[in-house]
């Protein structure tokens, strides 16, 4: 699987750093687990659409719907370009192994 694009989510909340990550394939449970690594993963399988959420130790939150080709990443307030670039690089590398 390949990371095909990243897009900042524009909303009206000042200082939010929310990005959408797009891939050329769907994120299934196994891939989500690999992506989560040591992060705390939570599934909402009883929702009409099965949501998952990963909370990383640095405060970054990743959210998505299982089997969709994208997820959303919420970086903590005040995070910089370097942190986002590092996360994006890691996303691309992990996606490449799936």
């Amino acid at each position: 699987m390949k990371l095909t694009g990243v897009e900042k989510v524009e909303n009206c909340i000042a200082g939010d750093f929310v990005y959408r990550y797009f891939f050329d394939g769907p994120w299934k449970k196994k891939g989500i687990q690999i992506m989560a690594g040591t992060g705390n993963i939570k599934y909402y399988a009883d929702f009409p659409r099965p949501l998952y959420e990963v909370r990383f130790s640095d405060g970054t939150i990743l959210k998505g719907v299982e089997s969709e080709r994208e997820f959303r990443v919420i970086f903590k307030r005040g995070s910089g370009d370097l942190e986002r670039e590092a996360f994006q690089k890691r996303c691309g590398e992990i996606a490449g192994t799936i």
Partner: protein
Amino acid sequence: MKDRELYLNNAAASFPLAPGVTQAVIRSMENPPRVSGRDALGAEDELGECRRNLALLLEARPEELALCSGATAALNIAVLGLGLRPGDLVLTTVMEHNSVLRPLSRLEKTLPLRLEYIPLDDQGNLDTGVYEKLLREKPRLVALTHGSNVTGVINPVTELFEKARDAGARTLLDASQTAGHIPLRPAALNADMAAFSGYKGLGGPRGTGVLYVASSIKLESVFTGGTGLKSDSPLQPEEMPLRLEAGTPNTPGFAGLNAAIACCRGKEESIAEKEAGITRALVEGLLSIRGVRILGRPALPVVSFTIEGQSCEEAGFALSEGFGISCRTGLHCAPLMHRALGCFPGGSIRFSPSFRTSMADIDYAVEAVRRIA
């Protein structure tokens, strides 16, 4: 429940549109454009017909209505066309949308004028004590919203504007959240000017809006240009509505708005009653959920809330992606109101149903919030 889609963002733009709107837009676009339609009394074309029906709805005169691209354009035309002068005092409120706040803030900086904001009292209503005190300083303009796009509260505009007029001020009403939801009669509300969009409560197409300007008020033209009439004049024609309408109008949009008005006329009271029931059920349902805080006391179908321990972005994502509910999260373009309510910069989650929303939809929305809270 799977793959259900529920639209609860009617305070931004209504969906579905009123019956017949889409067909009217298509019909208009499939026909060759006709006469210019800026002759207020002209009944033979789509613009003229829409203007006349709007006038009946608002109990106004056709020539008191300028057709615009939305409430934002209408409010800008009003604020910038009023001829405010350096040092003038303008009163507005913390409840306002950026479409009021930003044009006024710009003039505060460029003229400069003096801009004062009416705060909330401890009940979440406008603080009339502060308002009356500021009126003694003789403002040129009082600009306020009829209904809050955050809390759904309806302001007692008739009384507030009566006092403003007594103080010698012009009055500008932002009726974006009330038009189509409750009867709107600008003259009876003591509004010299009133702006609203056609695509919220009225259920018309996006790209339509209206500015009511009482015959006693003469606004300067903010936009000048082609009118299709009186083309020999180097200046924008003086008479309304040509004075405030330059350029080729959105005729298909207003053909659609005309169809929306036909659905609304004569049914305003029953729409208001049905929406009051829907709003009550939504508020009661949300209040039964631990950790949910509703902002203010909604009288309109505009219900904003927060969930303890969750950012509204997180909650909004779960509601939209997990439950297929379209709702608005954030500041709703009303930053001062969120500050006043103690939820800035995080914002709130807003459900804005309409009279077309069913009680089953409300139950679904409440159950979704219960499961994510």
